[in-house]
């Protein structure tokens, strides 16, 4: 399985596959091939729970092709629990900013044609 496929399979189970640098310990999403901090190529896989809080988001009403049928929806960036990492995803059922204050607790539930699927906890 490619790196992207591994990340996708884990997202389908609500997990986030990460790469921990074996030299300096810095944590990256698993698409990293070299350490951002020390340049090392050595990583070990660490599986994080796909839970976190909303760092920022937008509610999209004018969508790219393939997403028209889902509008309005939210594109979200989340702070993953127990790490400094963020990851982006798709959230259905969000129509106004009142639905999704920054800091809302969310979790990754799936991966499909809308990318990483995020729902409220």
């Amino acid at each position, binding site marked *: 399985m490619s790196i*992207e496929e591994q990340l996708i399979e884990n997202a389908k189970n609500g997990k986030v596959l990460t790469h921990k640098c074996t030299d300096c310990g810095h944590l990256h999403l698993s*698409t990293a091939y070299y350490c951002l901090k020390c340049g090392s190529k050595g990583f070990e896989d660490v599986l994080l729970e796909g839970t976190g809080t909303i760092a*920022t988001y937008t509610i999209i009403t*004018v969508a790219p092709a393939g997403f028209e049928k*889902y509008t309005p929806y939210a594109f979200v960036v989340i702070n993953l629990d127990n790490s400094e990492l963020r990851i982006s995803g798709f959230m259905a059922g969000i129509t106004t900013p009142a639905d999704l204050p920054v800091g809302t607790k969310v979790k990754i539930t799936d991966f499909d044609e809308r990318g990483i699927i995020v729902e409220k906890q």
Partner: protein
Amino acid sequence: MSVTFVEKVCVLGAGSTKYGKLADSIADISTQASVSAIDSAGIDPKDIKASYISNVFGIADKQVHIGPVLMSRLGIPDKPSLTIESACGSGSVSFREAYANVAAGFYDCLLVTGVEKVTHTGTEWTTTYFAYCSDFFYEGQAGASFPGLFASMARAYLTEFDATEEDFAQVAVKNHDNGVLNPKAHMQKKITVDDVMNSPVVASPLKLYDCCPFSDGASSVILCSEKFAKANGGDYVEVIGSGRGGSPAALQGREHLTTIPSTKLAVADAYKMAGITAKDVDFAEVHDCFTIAEIVDTEDLGFFEKGKGVQAVREGRTKLNSDISINPSGGLKSKGHPIGATGVGQVVEVFDQLTGNAGARTVNDAKIGLTHNFGATGASCAVHVFQSV
């Protein structure tokens, strides 16, 4: 970065098509802009030793490999060309590559032409093509549009700092005020804060009038050595600083969601090379693809402290002939954003300003102008500083 330059580099001529919905083909408009730059410089096409072409979506108008087509139309098919893609920052990145080649002494006279032709594909497909400029695995694939990515920065800015959506709207109002004075601008109409606030939401909190339009257009400049410029005669402008930088491709990878790291890296290099600070800049053409972007840019470029850019807009300090004139051309917001052309078009504006050809939008007593242009959400960036001669 420490580099030894062989030559001082100058802009000898500049020209643009009008920006907007254009009927002519991508080959036609790139030639029109190139001819206007050649005429502005007062040179013969045979003086051009090579060309740098910036373009992103040539495939949308059935023409990639534009360089040789343009060279053929200019009667110099034997001259080499290179097409450069760096999303919305393609123009400035192309300019930078041309700059480096003249500075290093490889060529004494180059054509830099930026071009884009997309409006015929319609809003949905243009939105879709642009989303391909994101880190697609994480962003475009999850339904992010470009308005959506900048809206995510806007939401973060509203959360972190003392700012309102009305403040963002002031940027659009100011840039439309400038664009009305620019006959080449796409959106030549004055708007009000209410117009912005009442325009349809594209990606909350950004509304239609917070967004630059999709535009067609082409811009060209002639770049040459100082020796070539002096021998040629006529007006020219000196390039005194050039900087580039990069950022994590996806917003999620950035330490701060309200800062664009590539801008800070590029401008630090450009100021150092020019031997100036932000205070010395008389006016700047900055990358205002969305209202929030201009606020973030003016902070990252050092004109205002982080979080204070919004206050500067509120106080009118970035209007034409105020503290620092930001986007006297009308910026991407009003002049328009033909993405491959935009970075070159900024240099056209600086050339017109510093050679006394900016008409009603002239920045008074301007000596130093800056261009700032980035790709995507600022994953790539180039900054240039220019001085009148």
